[in-house]
C-alpha cells in the first residue's frame, strides 16, 4: 500500500485597502454599528446600480505585477446568483470567465528549501454581509456593513502538499499583500481569509475528490483544519468509503471539520456577464503608471541586501518579512553607514525584535528610531561604546531617554559616562592592580589554565565598570603576563 499524497489549493479572500466600497461610496471602515455603513447600493434597493472603484482595480494591478501574472487588458464582471440573507442583491458581483489577473506565482520557503507555488488567477469581487446567529428570539440578524467591501480572490494551483506548505504559502501571500499595500491583512477583522481545497491520492494517480474548508481566518486554524481534514479523508478511504465533494466548516473548539448543512443548490450559480457593468479595460499606460508607484518587492530586496550588504539569505529574508522592518533596517543602514550593515541587521533582528515582541509592538511604533539605533551602532563601530555597555544605551533609548533626538546615544554615553576606555595609559595601572590582587589566577594561568585568563579579564572589566575596551584589555593583559 503506497503512502497518501496530499493535494491542497488555497483560495484566499483579501480585503482591499480602499476607503470606499467596490461599487458604492459607502465607507469600508471596520467596527461601525450594524448597518450604518450600508448605503442604498449595498442594501440593493430597487433601481440602484454599481459603479466600479478605481482604487480596487489599482490594487489588483499591483498584485498582478507583484506575482508576475498577466493583467487582462479587458476583463468582465459577472453575477454569481444565489439566495442568502447576507447577499442583498441575490447575486454577488464577481469575475468568472475573464479575471483581472491570470497566472503568476509565489516562492515559499520551507525547511530551508524554496518552492514555487503557481497561481491560477486573481479576481475582483464584492464581499457579502454578516449573519449574526446569536439569539434574536431564535432569528438571525443581518448586518450589511461588510456587503460590497472590495475583495481580491487569489486562487492557487493545487501545488501544496502539506498543511505546512499551505501555511507557508498563506504567510508569504499575507506578507506580499501587506507589503504592496493592497490590504491591511488584519486577520481578526477578516481582511485575509482562506478556503482550502483538500484531497488525497496515491502518488501518480489522478486527483482525488476534494472537500473545501471555508473561511479559515488564522494560520493556526488553517494548519489544524487541513491536518484534521487530511486524516479524516485518509480514514474514510482506508475504510473503503468514497469522498464526496462538499463544503465544510472548521470548528476551532473541537478542531474538527464538518459538512455544511445547507445545500447550495448543487452550486448552480448561473453566472452571466453583469449587464450593469461594462468591460473593464486596463491599458499598458495604466499598468506602467501603477508599476512606477510600486515598492521594491521582497525578493528583489533580499537579493540586494545580500549583494550590497553581504547579508546571509536568512538575514535578508528575516529583514524583509514586513515592509516596515525592511524600511527600518534600511534607514538604520543609511544613518550608520554601509560598513555597519551587519551590526544593524543583528540589532534589528536581535535586541530590537525581542523587545518589540515582548511588548507586542510593531516596528513602525518602535520607541527607538532607526536613526537612534544607527547612532549607537556607529559608536560601537568607532570604539566609543563597548558591545556590553551598548545594551545599557539601548535600554535607555527604549525607555524614552533622548526621545526625538537622533543623537540620543551620544548624549546617553556622555551623561552616564559609558565611553569606552581605549587609552593604554589609563588601563595599564588598573591591570597592574588586578594582577597584584589576583596572584592565584596569575599562577593558574601560567600553569596553563586558559580559564584563569578570562577571570582576569573579567576583573579588569569590573574594575573599569565595563568601560575598558575588552580587546585592548586582552592584548595588554597577555603582554603583561608573558613578560
Amino acid at each position: 500500500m503506497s503512502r497518501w499524497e496530499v493535494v491542497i489549493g488555497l483560495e484566499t479572500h483579501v480585503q482591499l485597502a480602499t476607503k470606499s466600497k467596490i461599487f458604492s461610496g459607502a465607507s469600508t471602515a471596520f467596527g461601525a454599528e450594524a448597518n450604518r455603513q450600508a448605503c442604498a447600493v449595498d442594501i440593493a434597493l430597487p433601481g440602484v446600480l454599481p459603479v466600479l472603484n478605481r482604487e480596487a482595480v489599482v490594487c489588483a494591478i499591483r498584485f498582478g505585477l507583484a506575482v508576475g501574472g498577466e493583467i487582462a487588458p479587458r476583463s468582465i464582471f459577472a453575477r454569481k446568483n444565489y439566495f442568502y440573507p447576507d447577499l442583498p442583491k441575490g447575486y454577488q458581483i464577481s469575475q468568472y470567465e475573464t479575471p483581472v489577473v491570470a497566472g503568476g506565482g509565489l516562492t515559499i520557503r520551507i525547511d530551508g528549501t524554496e518552492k514555487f507555488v503557481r497561481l491560477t488567477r486573481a479576481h475582483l469581487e464584492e464581499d457579502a454581509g454578516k449573519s449574526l446567529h446569536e439569539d434574536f428570539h431564535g432569528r438571525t440578524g443581518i448586518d450589511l456593513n461588510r456587503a460590497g467591501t472590495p475583495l481580491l480572490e487569489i486562487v492557487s494551483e493545487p501545488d501544496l502538499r502539506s498543511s505546512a506548505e499551505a501555511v507557508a504559502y498563506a504567510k508569504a501571500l499575507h506578507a506580499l499583500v501587506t507589503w504592496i499595500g493592497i490590504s491591511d491583512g488584519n486577520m481578526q477583522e477578516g481582511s485575509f481569509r482562506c478556503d482550502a481545497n483538500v484531497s488525497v491520492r496515491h502518488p501518480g494517480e489522478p486527483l482525488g475528490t476534494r472537500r473545501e474548508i471555508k473561511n479559515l481566518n488564522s494560520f493556526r486554524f488553517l494548519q489544524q483544519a487541513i491536518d484534521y481534514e487530511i486524516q479524516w479523508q485518509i480514514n474514510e478511504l482506508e475504510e473503503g468509503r468514497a469522498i464526496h465533494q462538499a463544503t465544510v466548516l472548521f470548528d476551532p473548539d473541537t478542531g474538527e471539520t464538518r459538512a455544511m448543512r445547507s445545500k447550495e443548490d448543487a452550486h448552480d450559480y448561473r453566472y452571466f456577464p453583469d449587464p450593469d457593468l461594462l468591460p473593464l479595460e486596463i491599458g499598458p499606460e495604466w499598468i506602467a503608471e501603477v508599476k512606477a508607484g510600486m515598492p521594491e518587492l521582497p525578493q528583489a530586496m533580499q537579493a540586494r541586501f545580500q549583494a550590497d550588504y553581504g547579508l546571509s539569505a536568512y538575514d535578508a529574508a528575516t529583514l524583509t518579512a514586513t515592509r516596515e522592518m525592511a524600511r527600518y533596517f534600511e534607514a538604520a543602514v543609511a544613518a550608520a553607514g554601509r560598513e555597519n550593515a551587519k551590526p544593524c541587521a543583528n540589532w534589528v533582528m536581535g535586541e530590537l525584535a525581542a523587545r518589540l515582541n515582548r511588548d507586542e509592538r510593531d516596528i513602525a511604533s518602535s520607541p527607538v528610531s532607526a536613526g537612534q539605533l544607527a547612532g549607537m551602532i556607529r559608536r560601537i563601530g568607532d570604539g566609543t561604546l563597548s558591545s556590553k555597555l551598548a545594551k545599557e544605551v539601548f535600554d535607555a533609548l527604549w525607555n524614552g531617554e533622548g526621545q526625538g533626538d537622533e543623537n540620543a546615544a551620544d548624549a546617553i554615553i556622555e551623561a552616564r559616562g559609558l565611553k569606552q576606555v581605549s587609552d593604554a595609559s589609563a588601563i595599564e595601572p588598573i591591570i597592574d592592580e588586578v594582577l597584584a590582587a589576583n596572584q592565584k589566577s596569575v599562577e593558574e594561568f601560567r600553569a596553563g589554565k586558559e580559564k584563569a585568563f578570562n577571570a582576569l579579564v573579567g576583573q579588569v572589566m569590573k574594575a573599569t565598570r565595563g568601560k575598558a575596551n575588552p580587546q585592548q584589555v586582552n592584548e595588554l593583559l597577555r603582554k603583561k603576563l608573558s613578560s
Partner: protein
Amino acid sequence: MINSSLRELSAALAQKKISSVELTTLFLDRIEQHNPTLNAFITVDRERALGLARAADAKLGAGETAPPLTGIPLAHKDIFCTRGLRTTCGSKMLANFISPYDAHVVERMNDAGMVLLGKCNMDEFAMGSSNETSYFGPVKNPWDTARVPGGSSGGSAAEIAARLVPAATGTDTGGSIRQPAALCGLTGLKPTYGVVSRYGMIAFASSLDQGGPMAKSAEDCALLLNAMAGFDARDSTSLDRPAEDYTRDLDKPLDGLRIGLPKEFFGAGMSEGVRAAVEGALAEYRRLGATTVEISLPNSGLSVPAYYVIAPAEASSNLARFDGVRYGHRAAEYRDLIEMYEKTRAEGFGAEVKRRILIGTYVLSHGYYDAYYLKAQQVRRLIAADFQEAFKSCDVIMGPTAPSVAFKFGEKSADPVEMYLSDIYTIAVNLAGLPGMSIPCGFEQGLPVGLQLIAPWFAEAKMLGVAHRYQQATDWHTRMPEGWQ
C-alpha cells in the same frame, strides 16, 4: 388648456395667464373624475403636487428665468423611485414600498420645475404589452375602455390620451413606450441606450431598459427629453456626452431625407388598417420631400425569440433582490428561511413575472447557458449589425409600431407567446440600443395607429425633427378620444 402643447403651457405660465396651482388643480380634478374609470394612476398625491405647484409659481414669479417646463404637471411611470412616495412597479411585492430616494430622472424633472401629480399604472415590473399584468388592475384604453392601452407604460399612455396629465415618463425594454403610445394615439420616444440614466429606474432587463418621454407631440417629447437626458455618474452605462438640445432639428425641412422601409416589417402579420395608415403616412412623407427606399433587416424575425431569452435571463437576476428581507412584501407564514423566500416570492410576484423569472433561471442554468443565453447574445449582434448595414442607405427607418390596434382585454393574455408577438416591430430596436419613437398616423375602426421611426445611435434630435415635420402637416396627434372632456 388640456389640449395645449408644453410650449403653449410654458408660455401661459410665463405670461401669468394661468398659475401652476391652477393648472395642477385642473389636472388633479380631471384625474379625480376620470381615473376611477381608466385606472391609469396607482398613486396620486394631491398635497405634494400642490406644494410643488406653489414652489413653481414662486419661481415663475421671482422674475428670474425659470426652466421652460417649470410649473407644468407630469406623471412618472411607477417604475421610477420617488423619495417619500410609494413606488410599486405595478407589483404586490412593492405595494407598500416608500422609496427612500429619487431616481435620476425624477431628480431631473424636479430640477426642471415640473409638478409631479402621481405615479402611473404599468405592467408588473414592466413585463407585459397590455397592462393586464399589473397588481393594481388593468388600465383602460381611453379610445375604447373594453380594450387595452398597451404596455408596459400603459398608465402613462392612457392618462395623456385622456388629458389627465400633459406629459409622462415611461420606460421601454422591448417596446413599452412605443407600443402603448401607438395604441393610445400618442407620441413616445425611446432614446439611445445610455442617454437617460437608469439610476432609480427599477430594473427589468438592464441591457435593454431605457427611460423616455411620452406626450402628445414630438415637440413635447423633445422638450421633455431635454430635461430627462443627461450623464449620471451613478449609472455605469450612462454615457458621458455633451448635453444636447433635442429641439434643434424640429424645423429642419425633410428634403433629401431617405426613409428606409424594412421589407420584413411590411409582410404578413400586420392588420390591414395598420398597413393603410402607415402607407398613408409614408405618402405624406414623400409629399414633404422625403424619399423611401426598401431595406432589409434579415435577422429582425429573430428579435422576439432572442429577446425572450435575454430579457428573462437578466430579469431573473435583477428580481432576486425581492426576497422579503430588507423591504417589500414578506409572506406572513413560513417555517424556515427557504420557505420564507419561496412563499414571499410566490405571493409577491404575479404570473407573468414568475414565468419570466423561471424562463430566465432556466436559460442561465448549468448546461443550458451556451445553447440559450450565449446563442441569443450572438443573434443580438446579428440583429444590431443589420441596422448598421441598413443605415448606410437611409437616414431613418419607418414601419408600423404594432401589428394591430388596441386589442380587447383577455384577447391575448391566455397565450404568452401571442402576447410577446405584440412587440415584434419594436424589440429589435432595444436589442440594438437604437433610438426609436412612435407617432400617431391614422386610425383603424376608430382606434389609433402608430408609425414607428428608428434612427441611428444618438440621432434623437434628427428623428424628432422628422416626426415634428409630419405633425406640422397632419393632425392625427391632436385627436382626442371622446368622453373625457
